[in-house]
């Protein structure tokens, strides 16, 4: 009954819709929320949606992990390993940036008692 989900077109369409929705949720969080940590979470969600899009569209249903073992001796029917390697790298980078951002936000909050992005006006020219 649900075989139609196995066709790459339908599956990829669903993934595209899902990751775009995630992307815009993240963008909304970044633009509409005033709390510093919420803005950082928005950025993280946007990043995740890009990873999801990349992994999902680079793989078709029925492909296995690109590892030669257990009788698999040929590179047929395997997923493209490059997107997965790249996504792993990107996740590590994104994680580091997020950690730096959160630590700066915590220090800023300790120093000023403020976590509202719109109250960050120290740098404006009066």
């Amino acid at each position, binding site marked *: 009954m649900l075989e139609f989900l196995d066709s790459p077109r339908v599956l990829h369409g669903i993934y595209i819709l899902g990751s775009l929705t995630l992307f815009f949720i993240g963008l909304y969080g*970044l633009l509409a929320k005033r709390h*510093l940590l919420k*803005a*950082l979470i928005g*950025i993280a969600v*946007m*990043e995740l949606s*890009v990873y999801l*899009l*990349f992994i999902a*569209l*680079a793989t078709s249903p029925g492909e296995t992990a690109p590892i030669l073992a257990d009788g698999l001796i040929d590179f047929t029917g395997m997923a*493209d390993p*490059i*997107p997965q390697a*790249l996504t792993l*790298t*990107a996740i590590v*980078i994104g994680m*580091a*940036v997020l950690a*730096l*951002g959160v630590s*700066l*936000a915590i*220090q*800023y909050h300790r*120093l*000023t008692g403020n976590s509202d992005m719109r109250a*960050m006006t*120290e*740098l*404006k*020219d*009066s």
Partner: protein
Amino acid sequence: MAFQLTPVWFIALPLLVAFAAPLWVRLGLLMSMLFATPLVLFGLAVSLFPAVGDAPLLETIVIAPPLGIHLHLDSASLLMVALFNLAGVLFASFLWLGDTEPHLRGRGPFVLILLLITGCTGLVLTGDLFNLYVFLEIAGVSAYALSALRRDKTALEAGLKYLIIGSVAAIFILLAIVLLYLETGQLNLAALARDFGDIPAAMQGLIGLLLLVGLGVKAELFPFNVWVPDIYRGSDPAVTSLFSGILVKAFLFVLFHLVFLLLADPAVARAWLMALGALTMLVAELVALRQQDMRRMLAYSSLGQVGLITLALGFASEATTAGALFHMVNHTLVKMLLFFVAALMLRRFLSLRLADLRGVGHAMPVATALFVLGSLAVLGLPPLSGFVSKLCILKGFAEAQAFWPIALILLAALIEAGYYFRWIKVFYDSDPAAPQCRSDDGPAYLPLVLIAGLLLLLGVAPFLIEDWFVQAARALLGRGTILESVLGVQS
């Protein structure tokens, strides 16, 4: 094993030196290593110049392109690498000799400064799109951390704002890279350049737009640059000189490298890029007129120059491109000089507001004289190098019969004169309340005087390195040569 001078040293050496930081602390060599590393690499870059003029150097890592990762060193990227390392030398000597604030002299800033230089060098050297993203984040993260280095309210605010806007820009660039890979199955820049024409037009437009937004934020183009003056205002002036001198130049180079490489005919994007450049220039110069803080004024002035460079590079003729590369070098030197002066003034007066700097010319005669020299170089007055590079750009436009950019550039220079002379007039105002004591930070002026000397030298004798710029422009515009050198025989 023979020791070979290959391009990978430009990235490997600063990384190794940065990670060995605890060792340098123990040996008491921290500042000398920060000074020596870029100096060695600058020497290496200059010594590689004749070899690169014949054919670009390719450094292949593990497998040959298009499958493997490779570094691509041609005249244009070598010019940028030499510029970044020269800026690194000047910055390190300013920190070393200038007895600067302790938060700029420890182990943390040492690592971050070297990583920033590594990231920017990697950005211009890499021949692979995903490595571009990695280097972009290396440069980005070190820049965020550097701008928050002072750990007070303004510095943390600047660091947070920079981090948020920079990460969003990086996401746009990552999305563009993902779409490019899904469409072509390639990450190598030359292979992408070959296959880019086969992507459907709508997808080409989307990828181009994402790249333009992402790199536009990073390279501080209008309308994506509203955040820049805030960051420049909150960071240390010395650190800001690195942002304006190195980081922006690296991203401008990447933007135009991608434009010239991916588009078979750069004329498609010419109107858009030139319009962006002209808008950036005019808006920034107009807003700079009414700034009350020196760092914000210098930030807007920097944006104006970035706009000018974009305008000249966007036109994509050989003469304007060479002029724009020359202007990049000039602008790096000038902005480092001006921000160093700002750092010295901030240390003496604890404020950089126009009203607080009245009569500074009597208290700090040397610094103010250097500021005047720097502003004359920005304006492009004859004995200084700014004149030569602006003349190159204007001549390039005139040869191609394009006259509206010339009018705009001259108008922008006029506005620039307006606000620089406003500040200079205040500096030389006689004010009985101004402190008359002599300054005692003599050695701190050494790098500043060196920059001033370089500006004069390049202004009087541009023929010393003019060939290099023409060669670099040819390399930057020579799409066929790049494809051929990377992929073997191609059309």
